[in-house]
C-alpha cells in the first residue's frame, strides 16, 4: 500500500534540487537521509537545497521527522532550504511542526532559483 519514494537530484547554479515522487514516510530514512552527509552541507559547493514536492502524494510524521533532520543539519552547516509544490494541507502541517522556520516554501521552482541568485 505504501508508495515507494523515488528521489532524483539535479543542480542548477548554487541550488541542489531534489525531485521527490511518491510517499514521504519511514522509507525516507533510507532514501533521503543516506543521500548525503547532511551535516557537512551540500555537494559541489551548493549553498541551497530545493525540495520539489510536486509529485508527492502522502506525507506522514515519520517522513516529516526526516525532513526536519535534513533541514536542521543544513541550517547548522550554513545552507538554506527551500521547497515548492506543497499543497495547503501539508503547508499547514509543516507550519505546525516548525519546519517552515527552517525551510522556505515558494509556489514554484522558478521563484526559488530567482531568490537563490539574489542571496
Amino acid at each position: 500500500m505504501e508508495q515507494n519514494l523515488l528521489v532524483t537530484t539535479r543542480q542548477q547554479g548554487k541550488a541542489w534540487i531534489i525531485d521527490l515522487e511518491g510517499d514521504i514516510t519511514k522509507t525516507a530514512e533510507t532514501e533521503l537521509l543516506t543521500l548525503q552527509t547532511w551535516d557537512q552541507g551540500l555537494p559541489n559547493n551548493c549553498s541551497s537545497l530545493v525540495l520539489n514536492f510536486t509529485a508527492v502524494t502522502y506525507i506522514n510524521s515519520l517522513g516529516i521527522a526526516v525532513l526536519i533532520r535534513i533541514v536542521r543539519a543544513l541550517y547548522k552547516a550554513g545552507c538554506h532550504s527551500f521547497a515548492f509544490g506543497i499543497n495547503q494541507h501539508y503547508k499547514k502541517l509543516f507550519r505546525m511542526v516548525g519546519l517552515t522556520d527552517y525551510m522556505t516554501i515558494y509556489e514554484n521552482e522558478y521563484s526559488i532559483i530567482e531568490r537563490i541568485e539574489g542571496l
Partner: protein
Amino acid sequence: MNRESIYSQQWSMTANYGNEKAVMSLVVATLEKQLQRVQWLAHVDDVRTVLAEACINGIEYGDGTPIKVSLHIHPHQFELEVINGVNSRQELSQQQASVDQLWQQENPRGWGLLLIRQLCDQMEYGYCQEGFYIRMRFLIKGEKYGAKFACDDETAGQSMDY
C-alpha cells in the same frame, strides 16, 4: 459500539507501515457516504492525517498487535478511536513534548500526537481494557446529521478486517 452514536463501524488492521493508508481511505469513504449533507469536507485532509498518525502510533508502539479503528457518528460530531493491544506503558512524556522540545532531540519523534492535538477538535488518549487508545473528535456543522439515519447500510455496526 458506542451506545450514543447513531452510526458506528469498526475496522481492524495489521501493524504494518502503509496499512494506515488503506484504513484512512475506508474511513473517509464511509464518512463521505454517511455525511453527505453535512459540512465536514473542509476537514477531510485533517481527518486523514489524524487517523494515519494514530495508526502509525499503534504500529510504532503496539508491539505488533492488531490495531482497531472505530468510527462513531453522533448528531453534531464524529469520533475516531484507534486502539492497539499493548498494555505496557508507552513513553507518554515524549508524546506530550512541545515543538521546541522535539526539535532539540537528535532524532526528533513524537510529531504524530502533536499533529493530532492540533488538527482535531478534541482528543484524548490513555489505557483501557483493550490496550492503548487515542480518541479524536470532530464537530460537524450544517444540517444536523441524523436525517439520513444509516440503518439501511448493512455494514453499520459491523467489523471489517483489513
